């Protein structure tokens, strides 16, 4: 399988998180299908030109989250879990809501203001898609 993940050096987040996120997106959109074999840790490290230990960490965390499974001697593959994509988005949503709440606090917004702004954003998005 060709791995065309793109790692950014100006992205403030650690490289292993970027690798995790991009693999999750591949899985979420179905480019990496359930049960598909994925590159070995070493293959991906060479392709991305990043440390083996960084890719290893990303794979370990992805395993812990149930996105991929690793079998001894057989390499890694996308988990056969059917609820995978909604769960990935669920987690991403939770992270973004936390972030929005944090920024809101920094700006001194009241909780009601924060919720009404989220509501407006959601309505705008729905209107754009109609």
């Amino acid at each position, binding site marked *: 399988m060709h791995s065309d993940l793109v790692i950014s*050096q100006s992205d403030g987040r650690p490289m292993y998180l970027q690798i995790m996120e991009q693999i999750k997106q591949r899985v979420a959109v179905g480019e990496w299908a359930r049960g598909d074999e994925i590159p070995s840790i*070493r293959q991906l*490290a*060479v392709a991305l*030109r990043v*440390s083996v*230990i*960084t890719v290893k960490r990303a794979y370990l965390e992805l395993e812990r989250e149930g996105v991929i499974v690793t079998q001894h001697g057989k390499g890694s593959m996308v988990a056969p879990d059917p609820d995978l994509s909604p769960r990935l988005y669920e987690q991403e949503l939770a992270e973004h809501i936390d972030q929005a709440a944090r920024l809101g606090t920094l700006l001194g917004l009241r909780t009601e203001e924060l919720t009404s702004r989220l509501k407006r954003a959601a309505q705008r998005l729905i209107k754009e898609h109609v």
Partner: protein
Amino acid sequence: MNSISVRFEGVSKHYPHFTLDNIGFELPTGSILGFIGPNGAGKSTTIRILMGLIHQDQGAVHVLGRSMPAEQAAAKMDIGFVSEDMRLYAAATVGWHMEFIQSIYPRWDQSYAASLLQRFDLKPQQRIRGLSHGQRVKAALLLALARRPRLLVLDEPTTGLDPVARQEVLGELMAVLADEERTILFSSHNTLDVEQISDQIVFIDRGRIIDADDKESFLDRWRRLRLVLSQDAVLPRFSGIVDVAGSGLLPVLTTNCFEPRMISECQEMGATVQAVDTMTLEEIFVANVQSRRGGKLV
């Protein structure tokens, strides 16, 4: 199989104006170790001891299971070494050097050498005299890589290279690691290169190792906490704070053993945690050197 490719134990070397003091580290087979230090820190001296070019006063050095410097001749058949001050014959061509190295090392891989020539944009008929600095570095690297050594030792391999050449070189180094029996040790003061491809990192300053860990642990341990204090709040204090910067009400704490509990501890002491910043290897290195030199380490 020996799972440790390089082992230094209590290695010291004394010069009138410089001492390499009690150097100890291990490099597991199949990984890359990045050796970071300011100029004059002792990186090259350590590498020369590793290669048997300088003999240590004290301590043991094992490379690929052989004791250095006693068994250096045997060890060197399996080590590829490139250093900044390595001289190729100015009047000879790249191709002449390739044939010369091939005649010495039986494992020379001609088809790999040919593909490296292409990727490094070098021609066999070019004389060394006519090459730019970057081309010479790439030629020296080609001569080392095509021998397919089990251990590559590179002293500042990316210094003076343009960004394209640097990425080519880093790419070739990573390609070597596709084979998990091969190992690389390289020194650099370019922390970006080290951060990108190293598994293990050793910081050296003024002849001593000041910190050593695997890269992921390094990046996990170090954080900057940006706090907002109210007028009457006291600055939170706990172990592992290596630096306090910023202003009185907006302090920035740097820690080398971050744990999430620190955030709640700050909040309990009446401080608001505005942000918890990750740090680049460069920031970690500079903070590390400054705190050790200033003796500020708590």
